Every structure is written in structure tokens, then in C-alpha cells.
């Protein structure tokens, strides 16, 4: 078992399933944004947290070369492990966890944070909060209240007001042991979760603690998101 001084936290950035790819098109997480690639910004936030000592980038097999080149150019000297992802988000997470499994079993990794590469603007404050909450209670996800959401029944009628509904963001943080155990149990069952929290809740019964998200922590989905992201980065002096 690793002693306290050897323990660290790991950040996993998922870039294997970011959008569809057609013909010669590129994975959107390698688009330039304010002088760096989107994926670099997404990794950079983990690099700013002193407690996060392990970084893993999950990529598509045919993006490996590009990913290595981007890391060498934009995050020189920062050790980032490249892991080939699977067909689903769930499978990509599992492969990243298997990559870290030895260290998790030795107790060298306390908390694992899982982040979407397409969210380049996660503020440091969110990462610190999910990490601190996961250390204390086992798991944490950032979310924003979405008060304008309502349910609709099969006849198209409003069925209930959307109070208590939240819009989930990343990074999500979990104690590494239960997280790995949940994914191993899911693999034996053939279960595929929609996000990390759903798998941990189902197999480990860990209550997932919600911390305040941030409206700036957008996921690049539409072209407008790119322009918004660039504006947020430039107006914040590139310090989120």
C-alpha cells in the first residue's frame, strides 16, 4: 500500500468519442482555440492543481500521432499517458481505469477525475471543489440548475415542473477504488453507463454529491460555442 506522501490524484481526459468523424474531417477537440488545441485547454486545468500527479488522455487510435504531436508542442515536459479509447464513453473510461489499475490497487491514486476534452473552459475552482468533495464523501459532480426544464408526457402535455433538475458538467471526481470496482462489475454484467456517475451509483451505491457548476464550463457542440469559448478565454486573460 502506498503511503500518504506517495498518493496522488489522476485526471482522465476523454477525447476518443468527441463527435462524429466523416471523411477527412478532424476530431473537434483538436481544433485550435486561442492559440492552442481545445484538448490542451482541457488538460491544462488539471495541470494547475498540485494534487493531480497523473494525467491520462484517452484518444482514438487514428488520432494517437496527432495527440502526441499536440502534447509535445503545447504541453512540453508534462507527462501525459495516451490510452486508446473504445466505441463508447463508458468503454473509454474503463480502458483508462485499467491503465491506472495497478496504481489504484496499490493505493497510489486516491481520486480519479474524469473530464470531457470538449470542455476546455472548466475553471480551477470547479476542479478543486469536486476533488475536495470526492476526498471527503467519495464522489462529486459539478452541475448547474436548469430551472427552465419541464417534463412532457406522451401526449405532448407538460407533466411536471422541472424543479430539482440539474445540467451535469465535468470534471467528475470519484475515489479510485470504488470507481474501478464499479467499472469491473459493469464489465462483467455487460452494463454500459451513460456517464461515470451512473455506473458508480449503480454498482457501488455511492451517493453522488453535486457541487456548483459554472456557466462558462461549456461543451463545444455548436459552432457558436467555439466563438463563445474564444471570447471567454480572451476576456479572462486566459486564466479561468
Amino acid at each position, binding site marked *: 500500500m502506498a503511503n500518504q506522501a506517495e498518493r496522488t490524484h489522476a485526471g482522465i481526459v476523454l477525447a476518443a468519442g468527441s*463527435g*462524429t468523424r466523416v471523411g477527412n474531417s478532424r*476530431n473537434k477537440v483538436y*481544433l485550435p482555440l486561442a492559440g492552442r488545441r481545445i484538448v490542451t485547454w482541457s488538460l491544462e486545468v488539471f495541470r494547475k492543481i498540485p494534487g493531480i500527479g497523473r494525467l491520462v488522455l484517452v484518444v482514438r487510435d487514428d488520432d494517437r500521432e496527432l495527440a502526441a504531436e499536440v502534447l509535445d508542442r503545447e504541453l512540453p515536459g508534462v507527462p501525459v499517458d495516451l490510452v486508446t479509447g473504445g466505441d463508447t464513453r463508458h468503454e473509454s473510461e474503463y480502458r483508462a481505469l485499467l491503465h491506472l489499475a495497478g496504481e489504484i490497487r496499490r493505493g497510489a491514486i486516491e481520486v480519479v477525475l474524469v473530464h470531457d476534452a470538449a470542455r476546455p473552459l472548466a475553471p480551477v475552482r470547479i476542479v478543486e471543489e469536486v476533488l475536495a468533495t470526492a476526498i471527503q464523501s467519495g464522489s462529486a459532480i459539478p452541475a448547474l440548475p436548469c430551472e427552465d426544464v419541464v417534463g412532457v408526457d406522451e401526449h405532448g402535455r407538460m407533466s411536471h415542473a422541472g424543479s430539482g433538475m440539474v445540467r451535469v458538467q465535468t470534471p467528475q471526481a470519484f475515489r479510485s477504488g470504488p470507481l474501478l470496482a464499479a467499472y469491473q462489475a459493469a464489465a462483467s454484467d455487460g452494463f454500459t453507463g451513460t456517464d461515470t456517475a451512473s455506473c458508480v451509483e449503480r454498482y457501488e451505491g455511492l451517493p453522488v454529491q453535486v457541487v456548483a457548476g459554472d456557466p462558462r464550463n461549456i461543451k*463545444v457542440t*455548436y459552432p457558436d460555442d467555439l*466563438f463563445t469559448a474564444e471570447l471567454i478565454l480572451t476576456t479572462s486573460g486566459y486564466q479561468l
Partner: protein
Amino acid sequence: MDNVHIVVLDCHHCRGEHLHEITYAGRLLASSVCSNCGHTVARDLPGLRRAYIADVEHRVRTKPRRMLRRVIRHPVSFALDLPGALLAKPAKMEAELRVLYGRR
């Protein structure tokens, strides 16, 4: 970095995921065009030109530091790539100016 990138993004206008052509002026986003419906999102050109000038100043100021970092890390590939990079520079600048003046 190239100044035109093709990626799949969702389109607000025609809905669904489609190829988009994303054009940059230097490091700045200039426009996005949906290949399915032609829906275009673009920065206003005067604003883009102002931002571009500020960005070029920054690029010029930081160039020596960036070059030095590359020389230290990859001296051989730096030396091999330098002539090509110098030769390609005028065409690259011309492409950026064409974007800034709406000629592409």
C-alpha cells in the same frame, strides 16, 4: 496550424451533426460554415482585424521564446523544418490577410 479546418459539429440551423468549415485568421476564429445548409457564423471583419493586429503583436513578441523552446527540445527537427517554415510564411500571411478582407 492550418487556417481552415473541417470538423463535425451540430448545426443550430438545420439541426443534426454536419461537416463545418472553420476558418481562422492567425490564431483567431473567423467563421464557421455548415456544409449541409450553408449557415454561417462569422466575426465582424473590422472587429476581427483589430483583434488580429493585437494578436500578431503578441505572436511577434513571443516568437523568440517559442523558437528557443523548440530549439532546446528538438534541435534537429527545428533545423530541418526552418527553411520550409520560412518559405511557407508569405503564403500563410497572404491566406490570413484574405480572411481578414473577406476574400476567401
